[in-house]
């Protein structure tokens, strides 16, 4: 058992390194990923290790980059695209949503698109509205895309390796505040994959189920630890893959706790957590609910610039704590 503590950026880089060593079809392309090492330093020294062809610096052409990756994927390569900020995927949306996602289905199954699109998302850097969004629902609403949102370095490594193996397009959304933070758990050496579409019970509990992804898992975990001292026992579930969504552990947990809170950073309206709520509402575990389902999400506003404004726009630890305490106290 390894006890290496890596940051998410290091873990993602390690996964890409392993994949590129394993198969020569794997290559990375994106803006400033070469000598610069990536806007968030994720590709780091890979340019020097694998050369300019396999760590391919591109012009600022998001649509072209993703399109080229789709074409390369159709031609036997396994490209990993880095889009500098998830916000910029808007530029590339035709290739993501109309091409990559649909080719396998629409063209009759003879072709497939083994493509990974990695991109940082999330607020907290003071970069304002066009550099801070959480866009899971854009991707999760397109059949044909798999959407992964890792919450810690160990998961990020295993999930990314599985994503690169996957014969389908995978959108891999990394929260930029997690890049520099070591996880709670060590990152195992070697090339162990974590299958996509498997929810993880991060912490067991009996009073309240919290479903969260990405950085909200970290925040919710902190709340769960704190509230356990008050006798409130929280079960925390990280779906890890939003699409496809593994609901069984969520249903099982709600069956047990009777209370559900879903937490996301993105705006509440039409967020992916609404899908979680819809699935729970339509399942047998609904009958076991002893409290209304609590939804904690970002405000329905573009992310503002000033730190005091940015902070109120997305759920903070104190918000999660207050909501969790209230739901357990009020509903017995």
């Amino acid at each position, binding site marked *: 058992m390894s006890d290496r503590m890596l940051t998410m950026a290091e873990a993602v880089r390690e996964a890409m390194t392993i994949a590129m060593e394993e198969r020569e079809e794997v290559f990375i392309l994106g803006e400033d990923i070469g000598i610069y090492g990536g806007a968030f330093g994720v590709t780091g020294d890979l340019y020097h290790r694998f050369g300019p062809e396999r760590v391919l610096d591109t012009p600022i052409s998001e649509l072209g980059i993703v399109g080229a990756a789709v074409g390369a994927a159709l031609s036997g390569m396994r490209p990993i695209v880095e889009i500098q900020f998830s916000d910029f995927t808007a530029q590339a949306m035709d290739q993501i949503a109309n091409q990559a996602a649909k080719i396998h289905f629409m063209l009759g199954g003879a072709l497939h698109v083994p493509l990974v699109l990695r991109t940082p998302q999330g607020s907290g850097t003071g970069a304002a509205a066009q550099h801070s969004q959480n866009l899971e629902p854009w991707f999760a609403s397109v059949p044909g895309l798999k959407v992964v949102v890792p919450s810690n370095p160990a998961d990020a490594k295993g999930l990314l390796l599985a994503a690169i193996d996957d014969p389908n397009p995978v959108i891999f959304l990394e929260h930029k505040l997690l890049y520099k933070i070591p996880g709670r758990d060590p990152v195992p050496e070697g090339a162990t994959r974590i299958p996509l579409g498997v929810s993880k019970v991060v912490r067991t509990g009996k009073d309240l189920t919290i479903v969260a992804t990405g950085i909200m898992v970290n925040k919710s975990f902190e709340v769960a630890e704190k509230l356990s001292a008050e006798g409130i026992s929280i079960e925390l579930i990280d779906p890890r893959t939003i699409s496809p969504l593994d609901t069984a552990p969520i249903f099982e947990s709600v069956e047990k706790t*009777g209370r559900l809170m879903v937490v996301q950073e993105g705006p509440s309206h039409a967020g992916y957590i609404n899908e979680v709520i819809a699935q729970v509402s339509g399942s047998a575990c*609904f*009958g*076991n*609910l*002893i*409290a*209304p389902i609590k939804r904690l999400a970002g405000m329905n506003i573009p992310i503002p610039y000033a730190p005091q404004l940015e902070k109120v726009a997305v759920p903070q630890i104190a918000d999660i704590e207050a909501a969790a305490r209230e739901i357990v106290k*009020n*509903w*017995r």
Partner: protein
Amino acid sequence: METGELILYHVKPGDRVKSGQVLFEVMTDKIDMEVESPADGVIEQLVGEIGVAIEIGKPVLIMQTDTEVMSFDFGGDAPLPDAPAPVIEPVAVQPAAIETPVVASPVVIAPAPVALPPLTNPREIRAVPKARAIAEDRGIDLRTVAPTGPDHTITVEDVGGNKLSEDQIKRQAANKALIAKGLEMTRSIPQISFSRNVKSGSVELTSVISNWARVLRTRPDLNISPKDGSAVSHVGVAVIIESKYGSALPVFKDPDLQTVSELADLFMSTAKSAHNGKVPLAMLSGATTAIFDLSKYKMNSSAPVLFPNQVTSLTIGENFSGEKIISLTIDLRYLDFYDGAQLLDSLISAL
């Protein structure tokens, strides 16, 4: 209020009534009230007199209720001499006890307090889903419950929490006694159990049901009538299913002659209704063997119990590495050791 005047019977002895059907009307000093049947059943006797006041707690009529789920049958076509009679309890239906309920019988049917307005729409009451489920299960009228949750919502605690209802406790106890009595009869039978681990994770219960029936069909001598021990022409697999009233034993007749999906559908619907205390009458008798699936609890019973007049019995267990363990118990008066081992081997090969 201590008495109610009986105004009118809506039923007569021999009538078959449904749960919720009006049985009689009483007049109290506040209001006239219709009293509904608490269950499906047959009216045996009317014991009250029209126009005469009846004391609270005294019977008004006697009826036999159907409690189908627990009246499982251990043998083939007729009850065993020593088998307990089907659990059918007389239920005394009484007028409401509003101020001081007088419990004269273990089962007291308390209609809604008369002072309440008629319920036009039950959804006008706010309650969390689980509280509604509990209330329905226990026959609690949500109008009588004081909400303590936010926005005047009835919580689970308000309806008494997750405790078992009296009815459930009573039925579970009766059920346990019944099973115990049945098994008592088979204790003296010479028997032996075998088990084997099965690697495949695809040992679905329905597949075991169907394959076990297929194996037993090749051995008509093992499917016997409880009356005379003669062979019967069908294979009846009793499957022990968890219900909220304890164990239920629906019998799947000739499951090997059904398609996999037919059997799976039948199993799902039967398991669901059995859980809620209802097993179709046709599935209450005719068992020639039994299966007990413990795998969801990651447990294994190395010695499955033999039910009366059944020569074989199976359990499915599971260990923590996900391996299934199938155990067979045989009645040594019908099968010898090697025969039994071979039988289990045939089943596992079929799977």
